[in-house]
Structure formats: structure tokens, C-alpha cells
């Protein structure tokens, strides 16, 4: 378990992380969300022992990151932001270096490196120097060094930043396959990633925790949760829709003859809307119930419009 208690980091007088507290259990994939400069990376740097907190504490599987730094760090695989690597080394010698620092020697070292290389598919570039690799490959080298010692805690700072859609998919698949019985924390500002890989999302802004829940719970905080969006061939009667029980309002969409009917919190309005359509005999081309829009929740949370 990772335990974070009132973790705080001040630079000069500026408070970057403001008494953050939460816990992460094995098996959880925690998505750490927030706008740029929210304090995500700083929090991760404190969790991995790179930065000392100004106040508060963090422990990794029972090891305090300040008092028992080395023991805690042995449990962690960390991909720092931007996946820095020693550019003048070849992929193989870099990974062998990391394996040696992690305490592996001889045949076990080679086996560990080979397994990590296979997991992120680096076989083709093994002998190339890292600085000649594309961004996607560099990121994968960073991932390989993080998972090499099969850590029980994986902390990945923007693991898919700057990758193309195929590479993103691959990295997410990898994270999912690793996640079993591990603690995974990934920071991101890509919201689709949260629904794709995370079992839990924590939203922070200005160093403060704003929301903590499953992606579904977060989505349900959206105004669009349970909203019904219709696309019709003819103009729709907005007044009739708005008058239905449980309806909070009607919004016009950019598309012609397209409306979103918003539900009041906790209400299900699909049956009523459906009945009204049948009653008026509208020709509806598309009809769907929204789960909620994460980006909208994110925006309103981080701007302080919704608590």
C-alpha cells in the first residue's frame, strides 16, 4: 500500500503541493489528473524520493520514503517525466546498467533485460544508441528500465505523452497487463487514458485534491450524466422535451436538429424521452444516453466551478 499523509512541497513561498493525503491499494491503477502545473510531477518526485517534502510523509509498502529511502526505492519502478535516459549508451548497455544497479548480476541480469526488452518490444533497436531513437522508442526504453526488476509499485509520469495512437494503445495494454496485484500510479492530462486504463482517478489542481473516485463516479458528476442526445431529420419540439419530468434542460448541439436533453441529478430520463418521440412520431436518426463527459467534469473541477 502507498500511504500519503499531508504531503506538502513549497518552492520559495509558492506552494506546489498542498497537504495531499490519499492511499493506494495493490491492484489499483490510479490515474493522477490535473492541469499542467497542478503538482502531479512534484508529487511523484516526492513519492520516489527524488525531492524531499516540505511537510508530511509518504510510505511505500510500509517504508517511509524519507527514513527508509533505499528500501522504498527498491520497490518502485519509476518513469520520470520525459523518460530521461543516458543518450550515449546503447539500449542494451543502458538496461544492463539499470539491472546492475538494481542488484542483478550475470545470467539473471541478462534474463531480466531480455524479458523487459520483450515486454516493450525493443528487440530491433537493442544495439542502437538511445539518442538516435525516435520518441516512441525512447519512451519504451524508459518503461523497460522501470519494469525491469518487476517492482510492486509502478510510478509513471505521463507514460504516453508524445506517442502516436498506436504506441499509446500499446503502452496502455502493457500497463493493464502489468497492473495485476501491483500498485500503479500514472499521471496524465489525457482523459481518455483514465477511462481506458485506470480503476481510480484522483484530480488535483494547485496542489490540492479535488476529486477521488472511479472514472464512472467522476463521469456521473457531469451535467451530461444520463443526458439523452438526439439527432433527428426534422426540427424537434424543445419545449415539449424540456417539460418532461426529470429534465433539467435542453441544449442545442452544433449539428443540425441535434439536441441534448439533460437530466436532473439522480434521474433517469430515457424512457420519458423515448415515449415522447413515439408520441410525436419524430424521425430520429441517432439516440444515445451519455455516461457523462469526463473532460467537462475535469474542466469544471479544476476551475473550481463544481465541488
Amino acid at each position: 500500500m502507498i500511504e500519503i499523509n499531508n504531503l506538502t512541497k513549497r518552492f520559495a513561498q509558492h506552494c506546489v503541493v498542498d497537504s495531499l493525503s490519499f492511499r493506494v491499494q495493490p491492484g489499483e491503477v490510479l490515474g493522477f489528473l490535473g492541469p499542467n502545473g497542478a503538482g502531479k510531477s512534484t508529487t511523484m518526485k516526492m513519492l520516489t524520493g527524488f525531492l524531499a517534502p516540505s511537510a508530511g510523509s509518504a510510505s511505500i509498502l510500509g517504508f517511509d520514503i524519507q527514513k527508509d529511502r533505499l528500501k522504498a526505492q527498491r520497490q518502485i519502478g519509476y518513469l520520470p517525466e520525459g523518460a530521461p535516459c543516458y543518450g550515449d549508451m546503447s539500449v542494451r548497455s543502458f538496461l544492463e546498467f539499470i539491472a546492475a544497479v538494481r542488484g542483478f548480476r550475470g545470467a539473471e541480469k541478462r534474463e531480466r533485460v531480455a524479458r523487459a526488452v520483450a515486454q516493450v518490444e525493443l528487440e530491433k533497436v537493442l544495439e542502437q544508441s538511445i539518442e538516435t531513437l525516435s520518441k516512441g522508442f525512447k519512451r519504451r526504453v524508459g518503461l523497460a528500465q522501470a519494469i525491469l526488476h518487476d517492482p510492486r509499485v509502478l510510478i509513471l509520469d505521463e507514460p504516453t505523452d508524445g506517442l502516436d495512437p498506436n504506441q499509446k494503445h500499446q503502452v496502455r495494454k502493457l500497463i493493464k497487463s502489468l497492473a495485476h496485484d501491483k500498485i500503479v500510479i500514472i499521471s496524465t492530462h489525457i482523459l481518455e487514458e483514465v477511462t481506458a486504463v485506470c480503476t481510480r482517478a484522483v484530480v488535483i489542481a494547485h496542489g490540492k485534491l479535488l476529486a477521488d473516485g472511479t472514472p464512472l463516479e467522476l463521469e456521473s458528476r457531469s451535467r451530461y450524466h444520463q443526458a439523452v442526445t438526439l439527432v433527428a431529420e426534422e426540427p424537434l419540439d424543445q419545449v415539449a422535451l424540456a417539460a418532461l419530468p426529470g429534465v433539467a434542460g435542453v441544449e442545442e448541439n452544433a449539428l443540425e436538429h441535434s439536441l441534448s436533453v439533460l437530466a436532473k441529478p439522480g434521474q433517469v430520463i430515457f424512457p420519458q424521452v423515448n415515449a415522447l418521440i413515439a408520441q410525436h412520431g419524430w424521425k430520429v436518426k441517432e439516440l444515445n444516453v451519455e455516461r457523462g463527459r469526463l473532460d467537462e467534469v475535469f474542466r469544471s473541477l479544476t476551475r473550481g466551478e463544481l465541488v
Partner: protein
Amino acid sequence: MRQLPVIFQRELASYFATPLAYVFIVIFLVLSGVFTFYLGGFFESGQANLAPFFNFHPWLYLFLVPAIAMRLWAEERKSGTIELLMTLPITRFEAVTGKFLAAWAFAGLALLLTVPMVVTVNYLGEPDNGAIVTGYLGSWLLAGAYLAIGSCMSALAKNQVIAFILAVSVCFLFIVSGFPMVLDGFSGWAPQWLVDAVASLSFLTRFDAISKGVIDLRDLLYFLTLIAAWLAATAVVIDLKKAD
């Protein structure tokens, strides 16, 4: 302590991954030859010893050794790999010392390549080979002291050029601290013990003694303490500046 050799190996190999190592060795060998034979008057002196060779080392190292040390930490900070290194389960001591020892071993290697000089002087006459050995030891210790200063300056500056200039300046201060022009600046107002303390910091007097074949335990301790102190300072600076 188990990881120190791993850090050492990687760092030493990284010197040879770029042309830097070869350029350095060539320049070092050419310059030490020029200094010995032209400026030092090796032949004209008519003496079978390597004094003309060692005498110039404090000045030769002043510019060459900071060039080896400047990348030690500045590069790590610039490329962000310091975050990788410092989140691996290694102690500060292992990181700082491992990197320093690699640079020191590299300087030692360059120094060993001047062995033809020893062969030459043995061919021409009958030198005191014991003094030559202590001369090498003194020269290597001197390089170590410069490197330790350079390591600290490299931790201080993110830019390698600035790290280089800082290191040259501080090393220069340590060379000239025994010179009358510096001591005069102190003798007017400072108590005698301070003047003596400043004078005793000088590399030159210590190095001269060792390179003439006189090994005084205090001189050895001086260099080793200086190295240890600057490395400790490096560790402190890294902790303070790593996040910038």
C-alpha cells in the same frame, strides 16, 4: 557500497562513448611534451630527472582537469537523468564517489600514457626512479583535488561551460593561495594564523614536496581531505540543486 562499481563503470565507459576521452588524451600528451621539452628545458638542464615534466602539471591541469569534471553532474541535470539516477536505490555516497572515481581513473590513465617520458629519461641517464614514482603519485593526487573541485562546480551549474569556468577559477585560487601577492592581501589585517592557513592551502607547496620525492603523511592527508571535503560539498549541492 555494492553499487559503487556499477556507477564507476558506467561513468568511465561514458568518457569513451564520445570523442572527448581521445581528444583529451591527445591534448594532454602533446601539451605535457611541449611543456617539458620547450618551456621546461628538459635537455638543456642536463639533469636526469622529470622535474621539468612535473613542474608544469599544476598549470596544465588547471585547464584540462576541469574539462573532464565539467560534465559529471551538469550533464545529468541538463538531460534530466539525475532524476533517474537519484531514484535508483543507491546512496548519495555511491553516486558522488563512483562518478568521481571514474573521472579520477580516467585522469590516471592519461597520466600513465606519459610513461615514455620515464623510458626516455632512463635511456639518457640514471634518474632517481623512486622520485619519479612519487612524482606520478603527487600528480595524480593533484588531479584528484582538481576533479573534486570540478565535481562540486559541475553540481552547482547546469551549464557545462559555466561549470568549467567556475572550476578553473576555484582551482586557480588554490594554486595561488601560497603566492606573496595573495598573502600580502591578508597580512595587512588578518592574524598570522589565518595567513598561515591560507598559505597552507596552496596546491603548489604540497605538490612540489611530493614531486621531489618527499612523501610527507601530512601532504597526503591534505590532498585526501581536500578531495573528501569537496565530494561532501558535491553531495550537499546536489541535494539542494537537483530539482532546478
